[in-house]
């Protein structure tokens, strides 16, 4: 039976580029313990576990088998999801499904990535061109976002400086987030001086590789109200995949974000995203993407986001509360990132985000996950019904 579900506890590690002091199961246990502490529960109360990580980037096969015993998961039912970039979002959706069935009381969603261990082992091209063609053209997240940025510049009339302005804004938000990895104190000059990877993408525009884990606990209504006074309700979720159908080689503006958001908005009765949603935590793997995602999510008109960024209208305490946590450009443990977006959105609703808390009441928050060639998972959270 479909029940209302709410997130009752969240936990994440302090994200760093190298964690040589722990191995993968220990890293995950840090986040699990943080989430259990947040919800004031123990592993005895957990009755289902959904795990995910982008295992090929770590060079490990079926890592959930290795990780589960470390945090006390022996004897628990569970399984693992793996969808490359959108793993965390799909796993969150799986945890939501298990909780919404009403058959389980506390479902744990565990996600992690330990990128200092693999060497991007089997390549993360982003898929779509089939095995034969994949290695012939340089096909990686960096070139994909270069294509997006090229299309953005030519369609909107902005310059590459605007990507730099975006990066500075992202960094200013990340400086206030104790968990974010890159807190660099950037200025526009520093960004424009950094090496060009693939024009117009510079080194500082791209997300880093991170070791981190994100965990949350989700429960059906009755249990959620027992566990916490500040449940974060999950109103809706939608996984929109594309998977090889069309690639950015064919369409540099390819994205399912607008379609996914509009479907969710229609289902939930949202007509004006900027008015109806008070915090956005969107997965943007590179600074130029943030501008385009703002338009696709619907907070501004097409090809105008760069003007708003230039005028300083985007930020924690500004008109458009977009990625107050610093976003993915500051922290990107691939398998865990969508879950961390959800965690940050949940913290905004609860009012627990500390220095990067948006200063108004957040009734609804939107979190997304991104992967492949423009796949998205859209999750809508709310404070109360």
């Amino acid at each position, binding site marked *: 039976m479909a029940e209302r579900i709410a997130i009752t506890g969240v936990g994440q590690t302090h994200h760093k580029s190298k964690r040589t002091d722990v191995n993968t199961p220990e890293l995950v246990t840090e986040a699990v313990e943080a989430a259990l502490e947040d919800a004031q529960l123990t592993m005895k109360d957990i009755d289902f*576990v959904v795990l995910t990580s982008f295992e090929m980037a770590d060079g490990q096969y079926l890592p959930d088998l290795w990780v589960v015993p470390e945090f006390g998961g022996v004897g628990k039912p569970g399984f693992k999801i793996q969808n490359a970039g959108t793993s965390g979002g799909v796993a969150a959706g799986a945890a939501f499904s298990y909780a919404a069935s009403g058959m389980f009381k506390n479902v744990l969603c565990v996600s992690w990535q330990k990128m200092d261990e693999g060497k991007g082992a089997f390549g993360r091209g982003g898929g779509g061109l089939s095995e034969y063609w994949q290695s012939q053209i340089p096909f990686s997240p960096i070139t994909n976002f270069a294509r997006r940025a090229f299309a953005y510049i030519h369609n909107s009339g902005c310059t590459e400086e605007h990507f730099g302005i975006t990066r500075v804004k992202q960094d200013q938000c990340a400086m206030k987030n104790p968990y974010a990895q890159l807190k660099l104190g950037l200025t526009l000059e520093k960004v424009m001086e950094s090496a060009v990877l693939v024009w117009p993408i510079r080194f500082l525009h791209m997300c880093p590789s991170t070791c981190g884990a994100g965990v949350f606990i989700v429960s059906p209504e009755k249990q959620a109200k027992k566990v916490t006074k500040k449940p974060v309700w999950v109103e809706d979720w939608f996984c929109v995949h594309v998977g090889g159908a069309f690639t950015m080689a064919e369409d540099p503006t390819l994205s399912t974000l607008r379609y996914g958001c509009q479907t969710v908005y229609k289902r939930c009765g949202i007509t004006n995203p900027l008015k109806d949603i008070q915090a956005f935590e969107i997965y943007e793997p590179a600074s130029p993407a943030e501008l385009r995602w703002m338009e696709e999510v619907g907070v501004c008109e097409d090809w105008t986001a760069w003007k708003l960024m230039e005028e300083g209208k985007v930020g924690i305490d500004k008109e458009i509360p977009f990625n107050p946590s610093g976003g993915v450009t500051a922290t990107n443990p691939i398998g865990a990132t969508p879950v961390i977006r959800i965690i940050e959105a949940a913290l905004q609703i609860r009012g627990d985000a500390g220095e990067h808390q948006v200063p108004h009441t957040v009734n609804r928050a939107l979190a997304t996950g991104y992967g492949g060639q423009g796949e998205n998972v859209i999750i809508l959270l709310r404070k109360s019904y």
Partner: protein
Amino acid sequence: MADRVGIVAVAQTKFDQKHEEHLTETLVRVTKDVMKQTGLEFKDDGTGIDSTVAASQDYFGGLGGIHLHYAYTVGAYKRPDDRVEEDGALAVAYGAMQVLSGHHDVVLVIGHIKESACSKNQVENLGMDHVYGRKIGLDFVAAAGMQAMRYQHKYGITPEQCAKVVVKNRTNGRNNPLVMYANGITIEDVLNSEMVADPLRALEIKPNPVDGAVAMILASEDKAKKITDKPVWITGMGMCYDHHELGYRDLADCDALVSAAQMAYKMAGIKDPVKELDLAEVSEHCAYQELLWSEGLGFCGKGEGGKLIDKGTTSMGGELPVNPSGGLLSGVPLCVAGIQRVAECVLQLRGEAGGRQVSGAKKALAHGVEGPAGQLHCVITLEK
């Protein structure tokens, strides 16, 4: 909202040593098969198939995220394509849960793999932990060898009893046109075959490589009854994790399977599995596992797996036939195994199992396993 989940159509490819066609063509073929059986198409408005759950393995596809290459062939274009990267039975359980949660009504569950693409034991070695497991060259077959040795020592299971499992399953497999091996074998063949991982001999281990794909459509109760007049209901689901380090548990026991089975039986209201079930399709990657999993599933007491096969309870015509389809020993790929177990149960309960039909079958059990020496088990019970 759904009270029950029904399986309304299944399709399987022939399982072969090497499928020459490209993965996308195989997937289109099985997907179109189930679409034709039900008359459903992929739709966004709730009148067709809403979502896809897939079971596949990146390492066997050779790319970081093979779903990024094929998802459109299973209808996941602007639609969900959730991937469970473990045994297919877990994907069936998740697909059923998507329906039970009310989030989707009709779900396509598809499992596929090409074991011929690369070396299985090289991949499985990467599944062991860094410090101990990988260095000694452990893979799942070697781990099974250790479990077999412990199991045989503790309970006095003999190599002949394990060989009987192989003979039984390969004989059953002769009636299944889809599995790889169509010839039966004798106990002498098994006991004379090459020793691979002491005490496991070559013919006691699931053949490798085998390629294949299986698809099925799950639907909520109301829709299932409209789509077909022979839906098969999922009545119970259970799964459980065990320790990863082989030394942390007594390998002769399978506590995780006992837990998983109890979870499924509780949901289904089954108290005496041998009496209430009409058949069981278990995942026996090696011959001794059928005996060990039978104990965990409650078909006999602890340590009595050998007696069970000697009595003939699990043969065709016995009280509870196990693996009438020929089991994994007749040639079924890993990962697809779990979902193929469920598909075979569905065919049996619909009376469409041809030469391997168990007559009058009403309740069945499917089992999937993942990990070294059975670390993660999944049990699904079905009924007509």
